């Protein structure tokens, strides 16, 4: 080691990255690593970085230990756990100067494979496992637990926390519990005997996690669908959304079995494709069940025709779009926010759809349930726009909450009693002036309330017509309905900067994780921004007002074409010159470092300085 480089010394604020081979069983050990730190009261932001592959290709797990609680990636690596020879060179190059390299030292490596400014920590993992286990599978799997044990000593992670996690995981499987515990201590004992533990990087017990939970957005959204009363799910497997549908099945097994009959209060169909998935959702919703599908961009592309039908025939449908790198197959295991326009204007003809934009798994749960109320109330498709970063990564979020007084809002449904009472039923009749008509479920009444659903034009009583005025009347009512939607969807979050400023920033979704941290960094550079997080489309009137109230507004999003900016310009009539895009679309989640650098550079160009600095002729920007 180069004596001029001081090894990094940080407590509760560093990045550990595990470089693994896909399918080697490392995911479980890596997850235990993150959760053990959380159990010590120290927040982490963890991300799987994985290829489109089942076995053999490289995969990484990055754990940012961050007592300050930031949820985004930091960038850079302080400790690399290099378990994959294929990516060794790249992994070693990624380590920050003064950082650490943990590796399997069973086979000696030439000095050229190491860096002078990085502390190398070799543990003969393969040799330890080969000496302890005879079974080839055990030798491989326990290697992961042995490195976990060694890391617990090196980073001062309380082994009791890991053992508690083992006992929760292997409750009733004592043999597995014992063998895992044994492997853990093999690694731990080796590290304690051979290195000065802990390293400069270490975990110190804190109380900074509180009652927060560690959950991924697909799991939380699926639970939201259960709480939202969804009974029918139709889906087609596609990364990164598949685990949402599978998670719905898991929650239904837990919550939706009928105790007396043993039968299910739900139906889940793995359809033959995305066209059939959305067709089933539309059929079920037409017939009065709450139904959803989960998909990603390519699936939304395939659903276009049906989405136009659902919009025009006014059928509630809930779609979870877990966005990935596109277009085409693009980067199926990488994240993006690039389906915004695809969903907002999905299908041929004049269509507009309701989008909900959750920022983390907690909002996935909240919006996952809310989407069903909105779809029924508005009788239209509602999209919940996750992305891979929210959907497939565990995030540390406040606990999920539910108000037991809440009831499903089934919207305007006319019952047999209403029809018997002589209420006038016109399927597309705007009785209340909000653009939302009444509907009936099939089979409601022997003589009244039936109607024919079609994608072709109809009059207010659902009678077939090709008359222009009837078409225009209907399309105008759909616009009125969209205005109503504006009042019902979640409002944006707005916050003023600590200092008065003429500049603002707008973002949505998973960008929030990095945004919160970046705003603090920018403030340190004396760049103060009022902030607005958009949570839904159609846009609330406060959004153009926010833009109007500022000289410059940065729009931060994770796609190439500035889709949120386009939507803002298009829908709110905003002068595009007022909006400056900050775009990140390489498939990795946006970082605070990136935002701070981009906004920092652009803000200097625009001379965005606090008003007080201008008055006092303060520091030059």
């Amino acid at each position, binding site marked *: 080691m180069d004596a001029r480089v001081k090894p990094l010394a940080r407590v509760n604020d560093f990045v550990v990255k595990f470089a693994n081979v896909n399918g080697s069983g490392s995911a479980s050990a890596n997850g235990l690593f993150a959760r053990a730190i959380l*159990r010590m009261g120290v927040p982490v932001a963890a991300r799987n970085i994985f290829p489109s592959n089942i076995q053999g290709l490289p995969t990484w797990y990055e754990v940012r230990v961050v007592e300050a609680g930031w949820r985004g990636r930091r960038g850079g690596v302080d400790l690399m756990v290099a378990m994959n020879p294929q990516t060794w060179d790249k992994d070693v190059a990624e380590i920050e100067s003064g950082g650490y390299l943990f590796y399997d030292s069973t086979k000696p490596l030439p000095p050229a494979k190491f860096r002078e400014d990085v502390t190398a920590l070799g543990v003969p993992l393969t040799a330890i496992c080969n000496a302890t286990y005879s079974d080839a599978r055990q030798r491989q799997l326990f290697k992961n637990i042995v490195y976990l044990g060694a890391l617990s000593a090196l980073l001062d992670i309380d082994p009791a926390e890991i053992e508690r996690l083992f006992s929760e995981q292997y409750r009733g499987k004592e043999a597995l519990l014992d063998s895992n515990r044994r492997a853990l201590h093999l690694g731990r004992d080796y590290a304690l005997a051979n290195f000065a533990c802990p390293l400069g990087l270490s975990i110190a017990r804190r109380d900074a996690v509180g009652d*927060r*939970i560690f959950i991924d957005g697909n799991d939380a959204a699926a639970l939201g669908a*259960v*709480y939202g*009363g969804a*009974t*029918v799910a*139709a889906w087609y497997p596609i990364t990164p959304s598949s685990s949402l549908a599978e998670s719905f099945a898991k929650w239904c097994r837990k*919550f*939706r079995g*009928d105790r007396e*009959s043993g*039968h*299910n*209060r*739900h*139906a*889940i*169909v793995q359809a*033959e494709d995305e066209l*059939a*998935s*959305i*067709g*089933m*959702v*539309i*059929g*079920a*919703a*037409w*017939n*009065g*069940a709450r139904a959803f599908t989960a998909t990603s961009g390519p699936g939304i592309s395939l659903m276009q*025709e*049906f989405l136009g*039908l659902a919009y025009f025939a006014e059928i509630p449908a809930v779609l979870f779009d877990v966005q990935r790198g596109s277009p085409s197959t693009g980067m199926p295991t990488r994240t993006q926010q690039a389906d915004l326009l695809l969903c907002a204007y999905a299908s041929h003809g004049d269509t507009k759809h309701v989008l909900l934009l959750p920022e983390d798994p907690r909002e996935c749960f909240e919006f996952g349930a809310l989407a069903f109320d909105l779809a029924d109330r508005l009788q239209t498709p509602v999209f919940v726009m996750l992305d891979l970063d929210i959907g497939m990564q565990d995030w540390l979020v406040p*606990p*999920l*909450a*539910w108000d*037991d007084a809440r*009831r*499903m809002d089934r919207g305007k449904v006319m019952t047999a009693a209403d029809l018997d009472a002589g209420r006038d039923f016109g399927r597309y009749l705007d009785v209340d002036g909000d653009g939302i008509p009444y509907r*009936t*479920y*099939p*089979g*409601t*009444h*022997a*003589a009244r309330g*039936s*109607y*024919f*659903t*079609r*994608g*072709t034009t109809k009059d207010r009583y659902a009678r077939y017509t090709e008359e222009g005025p009837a078409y225009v009347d209907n399309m105008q009512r759909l616009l009125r309905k969209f205005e109503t939607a504006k009042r019902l969807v979640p409002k944006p979050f707005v916050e003023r900067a600590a200092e008065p400023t003429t500049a603002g920033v707008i973002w949505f979704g998973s960008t929030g994780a990095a945004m919160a941290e970046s705003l603090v960094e920018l403030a340190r550079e004396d760049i103060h921004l009022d902030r607005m997080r958009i949570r839904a489309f159609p846009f609330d009137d406060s959004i153009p007002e926010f833009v109007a109230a500022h000289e410059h507004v940065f729009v931060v999003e994770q796609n190439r074409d500035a889709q949120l900016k386009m939507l803002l310009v298009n829908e709110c009539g905003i002068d595009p010159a007022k909006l400056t895009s900050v775009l990140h679309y390489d498939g990795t989640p946006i970082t605070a470092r990136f935002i701070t650098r981009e906004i920092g550079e652009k803000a200097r160009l625009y001379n965005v300085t606090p008003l007080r600095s201008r008055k006092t002729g303060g520091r030059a920007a």
Partner: protein
Amino acid sequence: MTYLAKPKIHHPALPKNALGYTRRDYEGAISTLCAGCGHDSISAAIIQAFYELDVAPHRVAKLSGIGCSSKTPTYFLGNSHGFNSVHGRMPSVLTGAALANRDLIYLGVSGDGDSASIGLGQFAHVLRRGVNMVYVVENNGVYGLTKGQFSATADKGSKSKRGATNNDEPIDLVLLALALGATFVARGFSGDKAQLVPLLKAAVAHRGAAFIDVVSPCVAFNNHPGSTKSYDYVREHNEAVNRLDFMPERAPIAVDYPDGSVRDVVMHDGGLVRLHKIDAAYDPSDKVSAMAYLESHRARGEVVTGLLYVDPDSRDMHAALSTVDKPLNALGDADLVPGSAALAAVNAAFR
């Protein structure tokens, strides 16, 4: 067919079924199809079948795709909810509807373009899922609404009205339905109502995927010499394997087996299908021989009609999914929402 409005007043002496409905209560709007269209005869058979089955019209949901055939649900069961969906995708919409409410009767109406061309995938999967429905294809071998292009069921070598020859192999939806696991497979002819009405009634009584291919000549584009789907061709080459009667459970059933030519099949609802075999060798419970029989007659240019296959012990999609008896669309908050206490336990598991 005609633009004269139907009178709304019923003759007081019109016969009523067991529920008190007259045949008129099962009718729909006036057809806008061409005069003589086979599809109108099928609509008439549907009206008669549901009237005779004593089904309350509003307990039927009728769904279709796009095309001439898919327009017909407007022309029958006017008090039923209808859904004219998108081209070739009726099966998925019907599947979803059936998932939401298992208590209604689902009638899917499609055409050869809708089911054999654009919708072949959905046709296949709705049958293999065992969706409890009656799926009728009104099969005329051409696209009517777009004026006479071939569909995927048009026979190889057949000529269009404009003189073009079809070079592609035809898809036989009946053979396909058998291969895909439909548990009730029949073929009828729009010009043979005496055979079609009992087929429809038996299909409604069947639990599971019931498929009926109805050859239905297109008078505008496919009723000319050289067409194998013309009235004349089908009448001359129709090879009926059986005739059947459908007797609902409550009708007295006189059991007699005079010879090997009659066979009774008990349906799920207790109703009885009595097959009068015309070809004594034909066995509708043997799928393998049914397929061989169909192929050998097809090679001779014969159109085999009748009840071709039935599995009286079939299970439907709801049985496979083990759903509760109460329709899913009737479940409320108490049935569906686990509540805050359950959520607290979920939260604890994620720490």
